């Protein structure tokens, strides 16, 4: 089976002014990412606003992403659903559409306990034969999220449950999975503010929001660490720390900042995300502009 690795931008889903899916914009963004050297493409994660899309729109995003990428890099599709059954349906859709792997978020709203989480993931892994990356968000509130021990157990039992996107914000959990996971599970970083230390710990890639506006620098970061050029990687990293800090924990406006950033860069960001999310304040927009210009992007 193919080994996935490297920097995957977590794409936003651009809308037009009349709140329709901006298909041309999405295609243009994908072209740009590939030209900038990303190692894969990820659609329909939290940043892709999967919960705010209709079923029809979600299918379109997967179809367009697979078609436009056209096997140049691997494609990951987010398959979060309301129920286990619904999630299996999305996972099957992604596989049939030609996605290379799926991104499986913790079920939202339900706050499942350990046994429920285990059953949920088990049924999906058994129902659809496609590599699954668990998206472990939910550091807040703290009792949500899949603990390393459960993930390691699932990875031993189900061969296609083979990737873990670490988004709890707690690096020691990622470290435990890298250390204990062996060949059963591969760790990807899912926290933009931790990509560099997680790569040095042995993380094999990232599903990365910042890569949606800094695809080249984020891809270079991964390659520098992979080549053992730690000093250079750290230098590049610290140039990006102010930006990833506000993205992850400073503003709580991740999607909004990426959409605005894409607009500033002349790519397809589009209007504010769908409500209840609201756009950046004027101050935040000015700060974002300054950070992109300090990075030499503007």
């Amino acid at each position, binding site marked *: 089976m193919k080994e996935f690795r490297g920097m995957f931008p977590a794409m936003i889903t651009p809308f037009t002014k009349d709140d329709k899916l901006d298909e041309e914009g999405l295609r243009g963004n994908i072209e740009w990412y590939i030209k900038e050297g990303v190692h894969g493409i990820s659609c329909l994660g939290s940043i892709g606003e999967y919960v705010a899309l209709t079923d029809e729109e979600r299918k379109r995003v997967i179809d367009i992403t697979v078609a436009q990428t056209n096997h140049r890099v691997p494609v990951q599709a987010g398959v979060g659903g309301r129920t286990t059954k619904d999630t299996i349906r999305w996972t099957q859709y992604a596989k049939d559409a030609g996605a290379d792997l799926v991104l499986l978020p913790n079920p939202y709203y339900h706050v499942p306990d350990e046994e429920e989480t285990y059953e949920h993931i088990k049924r999906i892994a058994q129902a659809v034969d496609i590599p699954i990356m668990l998206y472990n968000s939910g550091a807040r509130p703290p009792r949500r999220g899949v603990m390393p021990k459960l993930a390691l157990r699932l990875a031993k039992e189900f061969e296609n449950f083979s990737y873990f996107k670490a988004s709890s914000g707690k690096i020691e959990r990622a470290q435990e999975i890298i250390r204990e996971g062996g060949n059963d599970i591969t760790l990807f970083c899912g926290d933009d503010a931790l990509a560099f230390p997680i790569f040095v710990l042995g993380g094999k890639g990232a599903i990365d929001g910042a890569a949606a506006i800094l695809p080249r620098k984020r891809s270079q970061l991964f390659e520098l660490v992979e080549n053992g050029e730690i000093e250079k990687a750290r230098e590049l*990293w610290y140039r990006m*720390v102010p930006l990833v*800090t506000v993205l992850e924990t400073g503003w709580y406006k991740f999607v909004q900042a990426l959409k605005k950033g894409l607009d500033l860069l002349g790519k397809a960001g589009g209007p504010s995300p769908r409500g209840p999310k609201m756009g950046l304040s004027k101050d935040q927009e000015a700060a974002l502009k300054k950070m992109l210009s300090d990075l030499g992007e503007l």
Partner: protein
Amino acid sequence: MKELKGTFVVTVTPFTTEDNLDEEGLRGNIDWYIKEGIHGIACTGSTGEFVSLSEEEWERVTNITIEQVNHRVPVLVGTCGGQPTTKATIKRTKYAKDAGADGALIVHPYYSRSNEEELYEHYKKIAEAVDIPIMIYNNPLTTHTDASPEQLATLAKDFPNIRYIKESSGQIQRVQEIISLAGDHVAVFCGDDVLAFESFVLGAKGWIAASANIIPKKCAQLFELMEKGNIAEARNLWFKIVPLTSSVEGWGRLAQTAKKGLDLLGRAGGPSPRGPKLDITKEQEKELMKLLSDLGEL
């Protein structure tokens, strides 16, 4: 001025069975740490039970440590006051300076839950009163006071003798945020035995290590490998010792675990720490023995 760096053991304070200070034991431990290659000694920190010592005992531990070390490595003295006030802390900081300490390790005033302004004034008065390198110790768990990276950066920029931060919030992000905001003014020391390697990767200059009471050589080697740029070997060593360092940190009984470990190794741990602290459980003791023997220490 001498630059402090490397792995510092935060020494336990051993007691005799009559609950007196075990002076000979303390001296013997210090010689052993230095023989094992430790880069510095920090006494009367949290692991040294500073809160549980009388004023006279605190002075004796300070004097014995400085005398026994005898300039072979730098000595940091924890100088948070016997009462958690600015005045008592200034008194101890002066005492430490006159006794020959190389720096003062100062945790926030505990119990009083200082706000941002109070904390700023506290450190300002200490920094202005005593000309000694100061390491601010951010431990929100024990002090209920959490200094943000912005506040720590401000203090470091405003007062030239605030030259070090010991970061013990448990969040690796803080290390990179402090370095990003004020890396030219202040050196960050890791203050969390679960995050040492990760902190070094991000550019931390040292580690105040409770685990170094029982595995001083390995804790010192971790820093040396990182400093030489031997990242792969450092990571291997880290993954070997992190089950032990995680237990020391994770059981929440740092002084007890370190003391028990010293006893198991034939050094001076001595009876249980002073109450309300309780000894580690029988199960934890078994686990500790296993961890030490897996590391080839027993």
